[in-house]
């Protein structure tokens, strides 16, 4: 399936902070066919560094989408049945307006003068895109990690416009540990002299800082076990006993490679803006309690966590589930066994697929029943 990324342009958006960005672009892709009554649309929302290219083979790059194992004919999100949309988030750097975009007022990249964005802002922009596609109500919004936060926010911000949400390996709010890892990433970028207060678009990008930030990120996405299986203590042959700071263990080469690759596709300022949006997000923002946030919400929920995910541990998913149960919301929850850590929702998808397919099918049946 060859796909290409589209760009939708909007007049502007007013952010939670009161700041306004105008105009702005949203990069998105769609898969499958919207049915006649427009009741089969699913919005898939990407995690931190993802992009609009979720499935199929990109016409531009020739690469498969980041969730290609889960979106397509007969996959978890079956494109024979459903119309799937994925867009790049606000503040991102892969087609949607973000800090690397040109500020029309100055004719130069925004850099750190880009206004702060929140997860709620990202969701509001997704809603504008969905509206522009002529879809009044989504069958589902689904995402893992930060995508899960956005899915939760959809249920809270637009309960009448989404029949169900799928929240995978995610949380209602970041823990101090999650904020701490993000802060290490931000500090690493800002410690790189090439960062230059975020003003680097004319010269060298802060490649060293950004790649170290990515290396830390990769460690948190894997598990102790998956790293042992993948790398062990394998190393290169070394003729000398002197200390060697060149990559020696396989895990070191791997992290350096992933770090340097990341620099070619991701903007350092976007890294700062998006991690800040994640850290400050709390689904209960503006409400007395977490439970109050879900008052009046009639959306179905499917929550999934993974046993070896220590970055978004199961207790965070269970907190969401318990909160929903207290209000007797319609919630299904399962902790899946996996050794892949936080990455499980992207790579270890067999059982996740079974859950998503059943959940979507019953939601779709329910929707059809309600319409009849």
């Amino acid at each position, binding site marked *: 399936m060859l796909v290409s990324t589209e760009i939708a342009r909007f007049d502007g958006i007013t952010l939670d902070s009161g700041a306004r960005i105008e105009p702005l672009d949203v990069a998105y892709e769609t898969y499958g066919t919207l049915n006649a009554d427009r009741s089969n649309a699913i919005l898939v929302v990407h995690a931190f560094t993802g992009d609009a290219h979720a499935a199929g083979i990109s016409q531009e790059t020739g690469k498969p989408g980041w969730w290609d194992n889960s979106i397509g004919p007969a996959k978890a999100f079956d494109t024979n049945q459903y119309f799937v949309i994925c867009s790049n988030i606000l503040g991102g750097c892969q087609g949607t307006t973000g800090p690397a975009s040109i500020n029309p007022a100055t004719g130069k990249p925004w850099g750190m003068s880009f206004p702060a964005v929140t997860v709620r802002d990202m969701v509001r922009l997704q809603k504008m895109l969905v509206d522009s596609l002529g879809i009044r109500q989504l069958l589902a919004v689904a995402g893992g990690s930060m995508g899960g936060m956005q899915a939760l926010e959809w249920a809270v911000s637009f309960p009448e416009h989404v029949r169900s949400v799928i929240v995978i390996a995610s949380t209602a709010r970041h823990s101090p540990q999650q904020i701490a890892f993000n802060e290490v990433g931000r500090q690493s970028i800002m410690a790189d002299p090439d960062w230059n207060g975020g003003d680097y678009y004319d010269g060298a990008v802060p490649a060293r800082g950004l790649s170290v930030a990515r290396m830390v990120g990769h460690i948190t996405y894997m598990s102790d076990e998956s790293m042992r299986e993948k790398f062990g203590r394998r190393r290169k042959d070394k003729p000398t006993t002197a200390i060697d700071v060149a990559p020696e263990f396989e895990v070191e080469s791997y992290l350096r490679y992933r770090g340097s690759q990341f620099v070619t596709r991701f903007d350092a300022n976007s890294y700062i803006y998006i991690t800040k949006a994640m850290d400050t997000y709390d689904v209960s923002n503006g409400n007395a309690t977490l439970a109050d946030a879900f008052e009046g919400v009639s959306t179905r929920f499917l929550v999934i966590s993974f046993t070896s995910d220590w970055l978004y541990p199961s207790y965070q998913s269970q907190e969401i589930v318990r909160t929903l149960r207290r*209000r*007797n919301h319609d919630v*299904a*929850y*399962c*902790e899946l066994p996996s050794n892949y850590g936080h990455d499980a929702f992207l790579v270890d998808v067999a059982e996740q697929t079974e859950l998503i397919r*059943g*959940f979507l*099918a*019953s939601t779709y049946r329910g929707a059809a029943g309600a319409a009849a």
Partner: protein
Amino acid sequence: MTTLAGRSDFAVIGRIITPKSRVLDLGCGEGELLEWLIRQKQVTARGVEISPARVRRAIARGVSAFQGDLNEGLADFPDNAFDYVILSQTLQETHQPVRVIEEMLRVGKRAIVSFPNFGHWSVRANMLFTGRSPRTKAFPYEWYETPNIHFLSVTDFERLAEQKGLRIDHREFLAGERRITWLPNLRAEVAVFLFG
């Protein structure tokens, strides 16, 4: 309908539940009963199940199940959230059966409990003639591997209901797929009670 998913007590429960009611199934397994109730009686269904593999199967069937033990499963629900709370063939495995029953009646208007009858003649005969912990069709386990920790008979349950002031609205007794009306404490293999 004499059995449902191979279970005669499911068939009885299926008959008892009224259409479009709200149902919680404690220990819902792979969600067979709830799936049937959703399709045949358009109920609003929730299930709790301790085994992750079974929860997965239940969700794949379209049942809103979640993973948790009985106590977790009940504690978070608000009062009167359900019309029926089902506990099928599990009461004898709980540590605090009375507490479980009280909680069932807190979150639900009525409770449906089914259990294997320890008063059945085969249990009595087995123990009398072998002098060992009884092993029968309904109680197939060795004493050291049985999940059953609180053995009860039809009469035991009726006594408890009397003591606790439970109003029994319906009772049904089964031997295989047959309904038993006469001498149930001696002849029923499985008992089903609907009470509030």
